[in-house]
Structure formats: structure tokens, C-alpha cells
């Protein structure tokens, strides 16, 4: 299949490479031309614009920072919509507001382009290993068409529902992971301040109902004090903002998410934004009278 890929950052680059490895004809475009180099070396072709890319592919994927970027590459003057192959399916794998995804889907649909929102979970490690969870919203037909591309990038691929449903699932995912990281950090800090070895506490908890992947993986990295990202705090802050904005629009009470969002605000404000979200442990230690 001919696949276009827009946005070759920490996540996008390995995802696009996995499409090349999967035997697809991949065309790429990024704002900074030098970012395309590793893909071109691997056998991908370069396009001069998202529009030029859309002219030659069956599926056009974007993996960018936020909704305005998605709008730009999909609906801008030189965007996918400007000159697309008939039957093109546009897929956005960025994490954006569900309402924004629905809006972009409707505007693309009006121009004859089918759209899927397909955000991912699993981080850089999952992107490299092609083990991402992919949460998809959109039509059955578009999902079927893009499926071979998803299969090259991820493992747990779920067609959640109609337009925006993928982003809703991703927001729900960020609630659980955001609150989860904060909870594990609180538990380990609680143990340490009580003079108990947090490593032993983690080990004990792993066997019971407190078991989770976050306790296992993030908990271990907290014990190792390995705050290298992973998933940067400022990105989790952005995602929690999406959650809280959606809650505001719908009249949803999310008290626990609200606290978590504020903790991420504090991390960004105190210079922890570039560290992994597990650095929330440092924030808790400071608030509890300790030092980094």
C-alpha cells in the first residue's frame, strides 16, 4: 500500500520506519527537511508538501504536536485536502481534543476525504518495537483500509467507535496513566518517609490488587531515580488539559483528574517539564520537606 507520513518526531520517526519495514511504499513530509533524512536512507520518498504527499498515497498519516498542527497539515492551503487522490483515508495519530478531531473529520468529509482519529499509547519504546496500542475512531470502511498500516505499528488495535471515539479513549487512557503515576509516586514516597524501603513495598504490592503496569515499570524507574523521558511531563500536562477541557464542556465532575492536572502544572512551572512524568515523585518529595 502507498502510505504518507507527516511528522517525524520521537514517535513519528520509528512508526514510519516500521511502515517501511513492513514493505509499504512510504512517502514522508516534515516542516524541517533534515528530519526526513533517516526515512529517506531507509527507502522512503520525500514530498514537497502535505498536498503533494496526498496526491500519491492511499492513506495519509499525521503524527504532530497539537490540534492546530493537525488542522494545518490536513486542511491548510498546502494541506492534504488541497490535492488528494480519490478515496484517500486521512489518519491522525496525534493526541488532540475529541471535539477538535470531530471538527476536522467533518471538514475533511465535506471535501470527500474519510478520516480516522487514531491516537496511540505505549511511548517511544512501543513506537520502536511496533507494540503501540492504537485507539481508532471513524468509519468501518476507513478502518479496514488503514488496518494494514496499523498492523505495522502496533499490537492492540481497537476500533472504539465513530469520529472522535479514538481521542475519547486516549483521554481516558491519560486519566488512568496520569492518576496512576501520581498514585504510585505517593505510595513510594509514603513508604520512604515512614522509614520503610520503598523497593520492598513495591515488591509486596506487585502481588496484590495494587498491581499495575505502572507500579511495575514506572515504580521501578522511580526507585532507580531514572527520570529520563519516556513520556515528558509537559506532554502529559497537555493531555490532562484535554481531559479537563472536555469535562468542562460536558459538565463532568473529575475531582481526581483535576488534582493530577494541577500536579502536572506544578511540574511544568518548576522546571520538571522536560523530565519523565515519574518526576512527579520529586515534586511530592519537595512538598513533603525533602530534597531531590
Amino acid at each position, binding site marked *: 500500500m502507498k502510505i504518507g507520513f507527516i511528522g517525524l518526531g520521537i514517535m513519528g520517526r520509528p512508526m514510519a520506519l516500521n511502515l517501511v519495514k513492513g514493505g509499504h511504499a512510504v512517502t514522508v513530509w516534515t516542516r524541517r527537511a533534515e528530519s526526513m533524512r533517516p526515512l529517506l536512507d531507509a527507502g522512503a520518498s520525500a514530498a514537497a508538501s502535505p498536498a503533494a504527499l496526498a496526491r500519491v498515497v492511499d492513506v495519509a498519516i499525521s503524527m504532530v504536536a497539537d490540534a492546530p498542527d493537525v488542522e494545518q497539515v490536513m486542511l491548510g492551503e498546502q494541506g492534504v485536502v488541497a490535492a488528494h487522490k480519490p478515496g484517500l483515508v486521512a489518519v491522525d495519530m496525534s493526541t488532540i481534543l475529541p471535539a477538535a478531531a470531530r471538527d476536522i473529520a467533518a471538514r475533511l468529509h465535506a471535501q470527500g476525504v474519510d478520516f480516522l482519529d487514531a491516537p496511540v499509547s505505549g511511548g517511544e519504546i512501543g513506537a520502536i518495537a511496533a507494540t503501540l496500542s492504537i485507539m481508532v475512531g471513524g468509519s468501518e470502511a476507513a478502518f479496514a483500509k488503514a488496518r494494514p498500516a496499523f498492523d505495522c505499528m502496533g499490537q492492540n488495535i481497537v476500533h472504539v467507535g465513530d469520529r472522535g471515539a479514538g481521542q475519547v479513549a486516549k483521554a481516558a487512557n491519560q486519566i488512568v496513566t496520569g492518576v496512576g503515576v501520581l498514585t504510585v509516586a505517593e505510595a513510594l514516597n509514603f513508604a520512604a518517609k515512614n522509614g520503610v524501603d520503598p523497593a520492598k513495598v513495591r515488591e509486596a504490592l506487585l502481588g496484590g490488587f495494587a498491581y499495575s503496569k505502572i507500579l511495575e515499570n514506572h515504580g521501578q524507574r522511580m526507585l532507580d531515580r531514572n527520570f529520563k523521558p519516556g513520556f515528558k511531563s509537559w506532554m502529559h500536562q497537555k493531555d490532562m488539559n484535554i481531559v479537563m477541557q472536555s*469535562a468542562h464542556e460536558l*459538565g463532568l465532575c473529575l475531582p481526581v483528574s483535576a488534582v493530577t492536572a494541577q500536579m502536572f502544572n506544578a511540574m511544568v*512551572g518548576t522546571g520538571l517539564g522536560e523530565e519523565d512524568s515519574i518526576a512527579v515523585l520529586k515534586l511530592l518529595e519537595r512538598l513533603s520537606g525533602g530534597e531531590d
Partner: protein
Amino acid sequence: MVGPRLGFIGLGAMGRPMAGHLLAGGYSLAVWARRQATAQPLVEAGATLCATPAELARRSDIVFTMVTTGADVEQVLFGPEGLGEGLAPGALLIDMSTIAPGHARRLATRLTAQGVDMLDAPVSGGAAGAGAATLAIMVGGQSTALERARPLFNRLGKTLVHVGDHGAGQVAKACNQVVMVGFIAAVAEALHLAQAAGADPARVCQALAGGSAGSRVLEVFGGRMAARDFTAGVEARLHHKDYAILMGEAQRLGVPLPVSGQVWQQLNALMAKGGGSDDTSSLLRVLEGHDRGAR
């Protein structure tokens, strides 16, 4: 007629009495409203009704806007037949709505480019304060513009503070909402506790008023809660709207507001139960709703 020619847009619960005070001060006043009927009482009192915001701007030296959202301000300023088409260089626009500080700054930049001054001047004090001309007015913008508007502000409010440059008035208003609605939520919790523990909320309010917990919110909103009078007052949907603004600022700046984050969720819950048009004192009923669920 004396002084500058004035224009006023946004004749709701706040705007109408404010425009009335300006008119009573002897100024020439032009008004515009989406629904003409809204303007009728002022027209009868001597104001001139304009067909469009642009027309109002053409015949005014100083224009006030008092609308609900940033999008509304944008619309009357730069929408079709908007104020922007009629404001002459040297005119002054005073936006007294509550909008995001960043939005106020952007509007000021755009108006400055066409030689028009702007002040952001949101208020606190509610419809009662607007009626009694006792509003607290928080101003952002240039001192020269403020001095030009001072006699007009004096007709609308009692406290006038020049907080800083463009947007600073809106920052102060956001802070005002943090304190005010946070207090309302705290009073609701206190009276909910009082009730559950078998104490008369009105008596508790009275007792607290004399001590360190005394505040205007306790007096006004606590009073409404004790009397179970939840008719607006301040429509809760407006406070809900303001929380999107202030929590957005917190996010943008990386400033944690853990308590406000919780208050925001209580407002969301109030909206969910259809209480947006009630007074914000009905946060008490959100707490009581938890009990009903438990029974």
C-alpha cells in the same frame, strides 16, 4: 449634553443599569442590542438606538462593551458591521466583560494598530453592585486612557484600581473569581456539614460572621443557602465559564491551583444537574446530591 459621546453594547443584567448610570450623568449615549427590545428602557430614558455596532462606533468617542464571552467581544468588535469598522483614530474602547487575559491583549494590539485605545475593565459586585453603582472595577491598559475614562468609571463603581498594562484587569478578575467562588464552595461545605450534624445553617452563618471566617461571601451566599433561595444572583454558568479561563491560564503558565481545580469540578457537577441558571450558592445542592445517591 456634556463631555465625550458614549456608546454601550451589552444591555444584560449588568450592562443595563450601568448604561443607565452613564445616561443619568448627562452624557449622550448610543446603544445597540441584538434584540432591540432590550434597549427599549434606555431609549425611553433618552439613549439613541443604533442599527449596527459600526454605526454606534461612528457616533461615539468612548465605547463600552459588557457581553458574556471573549467570542462575543470579538464578534461585536470585528464581526460584520462591527465596532472596528466605525471606531475613529483617537477613540477609546472599554471592555468590561470577563474574558481571557491573553485575548484582551490581542484585542488591544489589534485596536492600537488602528489608532484606537483599549482598556480591559472587568468588574466584581454582580447585578446588585451594578444597580447601586458600587462595582469594583479592575483596569488594564494605559494610564492616559484610564484618566480619560475615570469620570465615567466613577459613575459605575466605588473601587477603581489600575492594575497594570493590557490584560492586567482580566488577570485581577480571574484572581477575584478564584477567591470568590472558592469561598462559595467552602461556605457550601460548611453549611452542609452543619445541617448533617443537626445545627441550623442560618445560626451557624450568624455565628461565623463574627469571627475569622467572616466574609462577604459568607454573608450573601451563605444567607442564600440558609434561606434556600437559589434563584440568581449570579448565574452559576457564568462562574463556570470564568473557571475555564482561569484554569486555562494556570495550565498555560504551569501554575498549580489544586483547590480551584476541585471547585471547577463542583461547578461541572452543578452544570450537569442543570443548575447553570441558578445562583452559585446551589453548589450546596451538589453536595446534598451526593447524599441522595447514598441513600
